[in-house]
């Protein structure tokens, strides 16, 4: 099983205001620079700890995830690492110019020697307010945008695109991606419709924060759509995103998890309700899906692998990031590689 370090590019200072958007006045300029340096350092430590991938997502107008353009941070991380895949998980297609995104990702792939992976998403509801996007149209915009980007990466001659949401009379992306025909592309597998779209288009899927039985259900939908389209996905086509609290023992990990839950805000950094569904401490984006020492985490990883997952994208906590990554590298990474 492959592992991916979900970093945040988060603000390292204190912010008194919660919710979304957070006023820029809360951001100390020097602290912003320090935050980016810290994020890059953490990604470098993640590579040293044995992660196979590192991931950067797109979020706006708040301090928890300060990556409105993930490609910029990815470019910096590309020069600080040499082995890990650099995963943009991912650009929010309704918020961006897809041709520009195709260009940026191609440029990134050239910068990192073909280590780029990308997940195209439609964004969380609050983020559709960022640039004034109609939430009712985001699914269709995202699907068309993905089709356009794939075409922009693979068409060898200039072309025009007359879509429902995008019109470009000249598309001719330079540079070409190092990876041929293009970097691995993931799509959301969280809904039935999105899993089917990914299967039809030959894309991989990413499922976030769901329990294993839900993951298996989505993977089955995805595989049926892929089979109907004439191909068979493997574990490497399914990524699972979750939060992981680790320690040398289960009891120590549980204590850390309790402290994290106690100070959890009412909303997530992206503005979504943080309350865990039905009292389940593992449910939802604010839940913690992995808690424990090596054996407990391995059992959960094994369950997800049996549901079809081949890549774990995890935000790791274990008593400070440096210590968490050292612990992950020493006790968890080698064992997780053996999950099959």
């Amino acid at each position, binding site marked *: 099983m492959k592992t991916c370090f979900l970093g945040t590019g988060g603000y390292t200072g204190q912010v008194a205001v919660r919710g979304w958007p957070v006023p820029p006045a809360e951001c100390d300029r020097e602290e912003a620079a320090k935050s980016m340096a810290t994020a890059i350092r953490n990604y470098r430590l993640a590579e040293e700890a044995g992660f196979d991938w590192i991931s950067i997502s797109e979020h706006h107008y708040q301090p928890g995830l300060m990556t409105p353009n993930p490609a910029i941070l990815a470019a910096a991380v590309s020069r600080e690492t040499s082995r890990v895949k650099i995963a943009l998980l991912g650009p929010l297609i309704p918020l961006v110019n897809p041709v520009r995104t195709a260009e940026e990702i191609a440029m990134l792939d050239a910068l990192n020697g073909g280590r780029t992976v990308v997940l195209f998403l439609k964004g969380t509801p609050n983020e559709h307010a960022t640039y004034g996007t109609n939430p009712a149209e985001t699914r269709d915009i995202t699907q068309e945008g993905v089709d356009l980007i794939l075409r922009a990466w693979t068409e060898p001659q200039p072309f025009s*695109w007359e879509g429902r949401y*995008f*019109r470009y009379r000249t598309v001719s992306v330079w540079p070409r991606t190092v990876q041929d025909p293009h970097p691995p592309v993931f799509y959301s597998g969280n809904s039935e419709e999105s899993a089917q779209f990914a299967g039809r288009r030959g894309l991989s899927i990413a499922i976030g924060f769901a329990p294993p039985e839900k993951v298996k259900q989505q993977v089955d939908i995805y595989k049926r759509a892929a089979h109907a389209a004439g191909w068979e996905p493997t574990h490497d086509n399914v990524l699972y995103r979750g939060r992981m609290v680790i320690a040398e023992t289960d009891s120590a990990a549980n204590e850390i998890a309790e402290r994290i839950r106690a100070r959890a805000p009412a909303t997530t950094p992206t503005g979504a309700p943080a309350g865990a569904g039905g009292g389940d401490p593992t449910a939802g984006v604010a839940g913690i899906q992995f808690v424990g020492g090596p054996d407990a985490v391995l059992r959960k990883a094994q369950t997800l692998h049996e549901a079809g997952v081949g890549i774990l994208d995890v935000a790791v906590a274990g008593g400070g990031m440096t210590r968490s990554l050292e612990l992950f590298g020493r006790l968890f990474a080698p064992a997780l590689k053996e999950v099959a």
Partner: protein
Amino acid sequence: MSGLVEIGVGPPIVALGVSFAGSDAHRLLAVRFRVVALEAEDDAAAAAARFVAESGLEQVGFLGVGAAASAEALLAAAEAGERARSIVLASPGPPPADPRLLKIPKAVLIGTDDPAQPPDAVATWRAALPGCHVVLIYEGGGDVAAIRPRAFAEAAGDFLERQGRFGFMTGSVAISPG
């Protein structure tokens, strides 16, 4: 035998295509062109050439909608010689074995999900018509004029109007100019 349906005022366009005359795509294109749709039962190219010769028009745009009509439009444009200003082929199917070499601006409109087009359709058309512009009509299927008439009319109309400069948009993007 042939029929003729003419709609609109503006630069003249001769359009060939089964079921194109009077369609939504025809009406939308006629907002800024004089679109003369010919429905010939036998030799549409000859009918189009005859119409151009008899009309006295000095500059004409040509449009072929569908595989057979696109092949006929290519012949008609070649026959029209210097009177042919530009040509657009919509969902043209595979290129004819021996397409006429036209020096006028050319565009091919292909649906991204056209079931009749092989994966290399774009490359095939580029080889058959050197210098042609390829416009991908998203989810235009095998008949972009019928399935995406507005997209068809925008792309075809802009090309017929501005040819190689159709990449420069002319409409204002101001949101609140007043």
